[in-house]
């Protein structure tokens, strides 16, 4: 049981990294990864929303939509729930951690439309089965969030070095960022197979 949970967690971080292997959530990946600090704050918020969203959407899907034969409403209901949750997180952050609220700025409301969050909640439904229950879904969401954090912080480090690098004029700015992103993504493909080998 615990072994399976660890496997799910590691898989979500390494082999199925939502940013670098599934290419979800590229907008904040490119937008907020200029500095390590903001990258950390953003990924913390995303992780929090991912776990919370999965905690709410999974039971809604399993115990409301499936019995009612309305599983095709998955997308719209999930977006509704995520949007509401982000609002809730925003209200709470504003009250208790205003400094984090200010530093996240526009990116906090943008989590609403972050496809990585929707992706985590929807893809986990596809995985669910006898060996993959509610707990697995939550661990998967946490792993996905941590994976997002790892990708963001790693890439922020890469970008901070890019700032001082001597880049050809035609590649300056976004082009070199995309090239660097693809290289980081390539390096993550090297993890494929690791988790399967660990399990069996």
């Amino acid at each position, binding site marked *: 049981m615990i072994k399976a949970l660890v496997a799910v967690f590691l898989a979500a971080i390494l082999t199925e990294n939502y940013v670098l292997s599934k290419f979800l959530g590229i907008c904040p990946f490119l937008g907020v990864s200029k500095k390590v600090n903001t990258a950390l704050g953003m990924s913390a918020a995303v992780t929090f929303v991912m776990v919370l969203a999965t905690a709410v959407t999974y039971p809604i899907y399993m115990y*409301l939509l499936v019995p009612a034969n*309305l599983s095709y*409403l998955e997308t719209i*209901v999930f977006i*509704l729930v995520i949007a*509401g949750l982000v609002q809730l997180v925003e209200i*709470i952050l*504003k009250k*208790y951690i*205003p400094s984090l609220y200010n530093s996240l700025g526009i990116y906090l409301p943008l989590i609403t439309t972050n496809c990585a969050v929707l992706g985590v909640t929807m893809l986990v439904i596809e995985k669910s089965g006898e060996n993959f229950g509610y707990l697995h879904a939550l661990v998967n969401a946490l792993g996905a969030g941590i994976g997002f954090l790892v990708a963001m912080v790693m890439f922020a480090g890469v970008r901070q070095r890019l700032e001082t690098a001597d880049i050809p004029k035609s590649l300056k700015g976004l082009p070199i960022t995309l090239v660097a992103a693809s290289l980081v993504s390539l390096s993550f493909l090297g993890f494929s197979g690791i988790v399967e080998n660990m399990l069996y």
Partner: protein
Amino acid sequence: MDFKLILFAVLIVSAVGLIIGIVLAVASALFAVSKDEKVEALLEVLPGANCGACGYSGCEGYAKALAKGEAALGKCSPGGEKTVKKIAVLLGQEAVEVEKKTALVHCLGSYDSTSNKMEYQGVRSCTAASQLHGGVGMCKYGCMGLGDCASVCPYGAITICNGVAHIDPAVCRGCSLCVEACPKKLISFVPLKEMAVVRCSNCQKGAEARKACKTACIGCKKCEKVCEAGAVSIKNFLAYVDAEKCTGCMKCVEVCPEGSITAFLPR
């Protein structure tokens, strides 16, 4: 049958929406942040550049301090007189005069008068370049023209021209961001009045200063002798003009053999 299915789907989605709405409404009431109306009103009036010239952490910090009555009125130099008047109206106090000042680069070392001692190919930043053997230029006190000040200026008042920074007093709002950005500490505030200003920061002896730059102050004391108001003094082989004593007669400007004292004419 079909109709029922559609109705059911609509009902479920609206029910989920309704529940979320109620939860949010309760949460927003529960976690409501009580905002000071005075602070909000003051924030509207302040320029919103968050420059920190007032000494507080941005406009919000100053607005909070004003609302509490801890801060003096005339601290917002970017906002100027208009802002102070509005703040005074909001707080029910009398307006005070804002000291008008502008930032000035105390260096004239363009490529015409001085040269670079190396071909610098590193990061385009004065702070980085100043770590390398005391900077790029022949004069270790002078402006390197890599534009750290220009890049922090929120008003675009600073231009780098021929290897030296220039600040347009008409555009400068006196926020002091450039003062902090300059690694050579060449920028300081001068009042907006007709006066003589020393455009050099070289503290070396005359011969060495002249070797470094054609417009360097060599500390010859001619300006000190000619000044009737006693506003000019020489310290460390460098002239200083006391802005309060300077009458704007510009005799020191005429007598300076190096051209490092210039007339400052804001209008």
